[in-house]
């Protein structure tokens, strides 16, 4: 009953209202002369310094869903869920040199999306369209999943209704407010709110990892409880350590997820909003602070085991909603007011990434579909306007996914999203380094990688489902005599690369036109203060070159 949780609900609502207010005020924060430009609305004026970028990108990558789902995975499967830690360690050295090249070339040419870059680099609107659609499709379910994070909290507070509409009313209201201030303030809103969100999460987690082990008898007892639970379960692949079968999956999933993360449009939006190359490089050393946080949050799953948490029932009869284990743990162990703070941290934690993701998806639509195919001569003000409206549509779509469809559908789509976004790696990430690939090769590789990835995901069964049961593909399906599993995305992207290379050689031998590379080697090293190439006018080496500090 919700009345038992009144204190929690009041604290949650107050904090929620506070950040909503901040969201609207954000339009005036670091206010530009002219908000009617995609650089302002969609990238915060490309002016964020080290601290803002740290909060923004941290709040963007480590989402509410992550904070709810990773401990839920630890609760259910044990060590396999800890892949999030190596994943978020290898990511930063991996992209350390790549992102600064992307930032430079985007700064020089005014790119807003990864597809903008591909369009210019490979002179191919078709390839750019494929990249843009892949990005939108991968991002949409991710937004919907943020709602799953909020719902887990609302459910624990007893805020449920008799019918679908009443049950979902709180998140519909929450998303309507979010949509309104994102519309008005653009990327400045999540950037400002991220300060509150991350401060709350750091406080909650620090308290949790000190106070809860003290209450539950120490870390030794917590791990012992988890070990006992997995020993008793019939599943051979759970446990507090990995076994021979899932090590390859663990490592390839961590590596594949790391490769995919900065291909997501919302990650790139956060990166492009930073002021210069230095800000990005420094953040590559500072962002792992969030990885530590994530590692500690993952262990909340074991604390829930030790505390004897029983997850709430799921949407269907006889299922459990394991996403509720962390909210339940807080409800059980913390005083009401602090549980309210913790819930607010998760709830607000959903808003920041949801806002950035909807902005990123809207930018992709505006730049790579609207401007490319519908209105070639769109002015910057029109672009900003289309993006603002699209961001509303995207959010309505995300809410509709959760209200009208089984949330499991969004979870499946997000699983697929990670695999398909990885298929943009050859064009976007390798494209930053080499133009060796032919645009036809990249398109062919993309198509084969997508097809293979989808087929493999379809083949994966889990104890409860026949298809789309996870991303761990049994190698025996390929005819290998083994019980080992591997991450689908890695296999798909390797095949994608092989096809892209072969087709490149073939079409080059057939002398198919390659298109003109619109970027120069120098573009990849440009920094703050270097001149921009303005659209419509060819570059002029001498004029407009600002002095370099």
């Amino acid at each position, binding site marked *: 009953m919700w009345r038992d949780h009144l204190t929690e609900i009041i604290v949650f609502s107050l904090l929620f209202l506070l950040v909503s207010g901040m969201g609207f005020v954000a339009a005036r924060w670091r206010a530009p002369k002219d908000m009617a430009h995609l650089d302002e609305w969609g990238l915060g004026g490309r002016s964020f310094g080290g601290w803002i970028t740290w909060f923004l990108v941290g709040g963007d990558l480590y989402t509410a869903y992550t904070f709810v789902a990773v401990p839920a995975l630890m609760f259910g499967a044990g*060590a396999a869920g*800890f892949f999030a*830690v*190596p994943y978020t*360690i*290898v990511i*930063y*050295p*991996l992209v*350390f*040199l790549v992102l*600064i*090249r992307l930032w430079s070339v985007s700064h020089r040419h005014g790119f807003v999306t990864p597809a903008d870059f591909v369009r*210019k680099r490979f*002179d191919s609107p078709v390839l750019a369209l494929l990249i843009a659609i892949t990005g939108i499709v991968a991002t949409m379910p991710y937004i919907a999943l943020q709602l799953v994070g909020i719902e887990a909290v609302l459910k624990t507070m007893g805020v449920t209704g008799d019918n679908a509409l009443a049950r979902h009313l709180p998140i519909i209201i929450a998303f309507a407010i979010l949509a309104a201030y994102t519309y008005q303030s653009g990327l400045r809103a999540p950037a400002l709110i991220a300060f509150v969100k991350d401060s709350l999460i750091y406080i909650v987690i620090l308290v949790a990892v000190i106070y809860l082990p003290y209450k539950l008898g*120490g*870390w*030794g*007892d*917590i*791990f012992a409880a988890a070990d006992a639970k997995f020993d008793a379960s019939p599943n051979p692949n759970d446990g*507090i*350590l*990995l076994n021979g079968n899932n*090590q390859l999956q*663990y*490592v390839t999933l*961590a*590596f594949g997820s790391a490769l995919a993360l900065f291909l997501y449009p919302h990650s790139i939006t956060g990166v492009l909003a930073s002021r210069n190359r*230095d800000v990005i*490089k*420094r953040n*590559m*050393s500072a962002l*792992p602070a969030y*990885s*530590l946080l994530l*590692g500690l949050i993952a*262990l909340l799953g074991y604390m829930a085991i030790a505390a004897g948490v029983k997850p709430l029932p799921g949407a269907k009869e006889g299922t459990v909603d394991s996403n509720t284990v962390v909210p339940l743990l807080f409800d059980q162990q913390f005083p009401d007011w602090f549980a309210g703070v913790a819930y607010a941290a998760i709830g607000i934690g959903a808003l920041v990434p949801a806002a950035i993701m909807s902005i990123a998806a809207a930018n992709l639509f505006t730049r790579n579909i609207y401007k490319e195919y519908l209105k070639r001569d769109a002015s910057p003000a029109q672009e900003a306007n289309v993006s603002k409206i699209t961001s509303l549509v995207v959010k309505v779509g995300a809410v509709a996914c959760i209200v009208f469809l089984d949330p499991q559908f969004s979870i499946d789509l997000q699983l697929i999203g990670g695999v398909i976004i990885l298929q943009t790696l050859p064009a976007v990430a390798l494209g930053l380094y080499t133009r060796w690939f032919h645009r036809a090769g990249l398109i062919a590789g993309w198509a084969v990688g997508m097809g293979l990835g989808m087929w493999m995901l379809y083949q994966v069964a889990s104890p409860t489902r026949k298809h789309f049961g996870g991303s761990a593909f049994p190698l025996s399906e390929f005819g290998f005599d083994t019980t080992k599993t591997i991450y689908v995305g890695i296999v798909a992207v390797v095949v994608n690369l092989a096809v892209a290379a072969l087709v490149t050689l073939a079409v080059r031998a057939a002398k198919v036109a390659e298109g*003109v590379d*619109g970027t*120069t*080697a*120098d573009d*990849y*090293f*440009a*920094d703050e203060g*270097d001149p921009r*190439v303005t659209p419509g006018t*060819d*570059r*002029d*080496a001498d004029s407009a*070159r600002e002095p*370099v*500090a």
Partner: protein
Amino acid sequence: MAAPEPEAPTTAPARAKDHSPWNWLLFIPIVVPLVPAFFNGDSPRVFGFPRFYWLQLAFILLGVGTTTLVYQMTKKRGGR
């Protein structure tokens, strides 16, 4: 959209800025956390944490240390 490619005056120093032998160090925090043989074990325990957990958390320091070192060693090149 064929942009001519003039010789930009900043080409040489700018290029030199990204290329550095220090960058090779970045491979260490990419490879080490992906070798299960290092961390997939229970002993020794630290504060009750099995090795699997404390060592992987410690790899975060490896990552931070390496990227910080590379950043510091490469930032002043190119005469900026």
